[in-house]
């Protein structure tokens, strides 16, 4: 059964994207198809997770070519878990976008949103499932090409300027990725990750270190790691809210996933890389959150918290122990859900007040009390207030960090706690400026691109509904925290003992 199921999360959205272009004039049909496709992907991801958790990694060799020559798709616990979470988040954001009307492409004659969104979903699924380095590059490109269109969807001056930065930086990362693949192939003669893991053992230590560092730079750009993060807060906030939400939640996490996969599989016991990752984790956490503190724009503030919290995942990866990786995976799941939710709510706020500037808004809780709660819950979770999921994930990471004992790990523990407090300050300040105080007069931004008349527009129920669902999903992470932590611990166990993965792929 896995032979049929495993390629479907990639194939289904791609087919649907093609059909979606053909159905450009039938908006209702297009929407229905996108929703059904992503729902189907979520179901398949659930089944794959169950298979991976009970019977071990599921593997399919595409085209029937055996592993080192052909392309393998692999769903182990880590891939399947992230695939499931991504599919659910993609679905929630799609409903939100349909509610908002971004999906209808107000300005363009053809509704390009749905096809691009589906291609994006296919790229993300492919990145999670592939067991081949070059295929990972193709997955990144599929994902990025869709994201280029989505980020410049409105085609206004601000979007083009931000999109330019985004495209150039992504393209540079892609060139570096091709370079890295060339170097890996020259050193090992393979691009299959399982095969490369075996052959890298015979490669000299210095060459291995270079390969590890080049791959780290490539995925570091995608994941917005210090000092390669400056493109993110520059480009994300100008996109339409649902697009920003899905980018912030998922695209950087695909980079984090690639780091997790390559560092644990290809360079399992490199002390140097581990130290570098820990140092980068500290800098990413601290610099990111310091950037968030001074922002006046809600979406930019949230973008900086994305950067900052990537540091937590690097922290877990840098520890390179089962406990550290379990914490990193749990943190990734938590952050995908919570960060996406925050951007969705920020979109609701912007829709209500016409601006995302903190200074020019205020007192929204008198007008929209529900919105105040919807923002507060994920914000507190992001800062790590018990018993929300952010607290549990941070607790796991801190325990692993304290148990590690290296000075750098201890530094990272301190930085993580400080960042957590500063996050509370940053998101709390945003809450009090937007929701607290006297009701501010509505002064919409002059360069608003969505064309919504703030004074008369009502927030569509579907938008609020999708945001509520996302908030409830974030709370549900706390409810299922026990089994979820068990699952991430088993996934981390797989990562520290990559032999099983290698055997299953190369069999």
């Amino acid at each position, binding site marked *: 059964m896995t032979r049929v199921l495993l390629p479907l999360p990639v194939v289904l959205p791609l087919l649907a994207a093609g059909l979606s272009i053909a159905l450009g004039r039938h908006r209702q049909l297009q929407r229905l198809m996108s929703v059904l496709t992503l729902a189907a992907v979520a179901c398949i991801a659930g089944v794959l997770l169950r298979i991976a958790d009970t019977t071990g990694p599921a593997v399919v060799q595409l085209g029937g070519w055996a592993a080192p020559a052909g392309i393998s798709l692999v769903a182990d616990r880590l891939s399947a878990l992230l695939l499931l979470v991504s599919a659910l988040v993609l679905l929630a954001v799609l409903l939100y976008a349909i509610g908002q009307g971004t999906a209808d492409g107000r300005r363009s004659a053809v509704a390009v949103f749905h096809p691009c969104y589906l291609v994006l979903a296919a790229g993300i699924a492919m990145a999670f499932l592939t067991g081949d380095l*070059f295929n990972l*590059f*193709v997955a990144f*490109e599929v994902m*990025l*090409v869709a994201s*280029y*269109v989505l980020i*410049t969807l409105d*085609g*206004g*001056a601000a979007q*083009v*300027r*931000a*999109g*330019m*930065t985004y*495209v*150039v930086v992504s*393209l*540079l990362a*892609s*060139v*570096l990725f*091709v*370079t890295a*693949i*060339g*170097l890996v*192939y*020259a050193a090992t003669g393979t*691009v299959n990750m399982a095969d490369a893991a075996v052959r890298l053992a015979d490669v000299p230590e210095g060459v291995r270190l270079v390969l590890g560092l080049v791959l780290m730079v490539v995925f570091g750009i995608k994941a917005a790691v210090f000092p390669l993060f400056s493109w993110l807060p*520059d480009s994300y*906030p100008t996109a339409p809210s649902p697009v920003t939400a899905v980018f912030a939640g998922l695209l950087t996490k695909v980079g984090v996933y690639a780091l997790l996969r390559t560092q644990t599989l290809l360079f399992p016991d490199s002390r140097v890389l581990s130290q570098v990752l820990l140092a980068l984790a500290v800098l990413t956490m601290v610099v990111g959150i310091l950037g968030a503190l*001074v*922002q*006046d*724009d809600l979406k*930019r503030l949230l973008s900086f918290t994305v950067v900052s919290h990537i540091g937590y995942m690097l922290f877990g990866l840098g520890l390179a122990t089962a406990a550290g990786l379990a914490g990193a995976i749990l943190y990734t799941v938590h952050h995908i859900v919570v960060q996406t939710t925050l951007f969705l709510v920020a979109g609701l706020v912007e829709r209500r007040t016409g601006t995302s500037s903190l200074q020019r808004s205020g007192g929204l809780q008198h007008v929209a009390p529900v919105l105040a709660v919807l923002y507060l819950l994920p914000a507190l979770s992001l800062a790590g207030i018990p018993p929300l999921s952010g607290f549990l994930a941070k607790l796991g990471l801190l325990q692993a960090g304290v148990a590690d004992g290296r000075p750098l790990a201890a530094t990272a523990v301190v930085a993580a706690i400080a960042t957590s407090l500063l996050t509370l300050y940053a998101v709390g300040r945003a809450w009090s400026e937007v929701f607290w105080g006297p009701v501010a007069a509505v002064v919409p931004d002059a360069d608003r691109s969505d064309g919504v008349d703030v004074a008369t527009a009502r927030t569509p129920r579907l938008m609020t509904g999708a945001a509520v669902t996302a908030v409830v999903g974030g709370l549900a992470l706390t409810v299922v925290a026990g089994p979820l932590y068990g699952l991430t611990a088993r996934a981390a166990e797989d990562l520290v003992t990559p032999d099983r993965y290698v055997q299953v792929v190369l069999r």
Partner: protein
Amino acid sequence: MTGNIVLALLTGLLYTVGTYLLLQRTLVRIVIGLGLLGHGANLLLLQSGGPPGIAPFSGAPGLAGDGVADPLPQAMVLTAVVITFAVSAFLLALAYRSWVLTGDDEVQDDVEDARVAQARPHPHAHAAWEEEL
């Protein structure tokens, strides 16, 4: 593995010139720079397959022996070339759109960035700071 010194030098040259052009402010230069960088990367990938050899056709005479070119990097380069081509076309369209909108070919500064850099401290924060002093 034997290498070809001319190809190696050419790869280095493409990376150098590409990096230089990427650091310019004019969009067209950035696009050309990225194109050159892409060529450099593809050339590197091509060289990773080892020395050139006879065509690796299935069933061709002499296929089992040495001297057959490694087909995998060539296939990968082909994929990478197509992707770079498509993205460059998109980038050019974006550069044109930017020129239509702003009448300029230069990368614009981020307005919000400049605003944050110039922003004065919050009046209340300032007062509290002076009280502490």
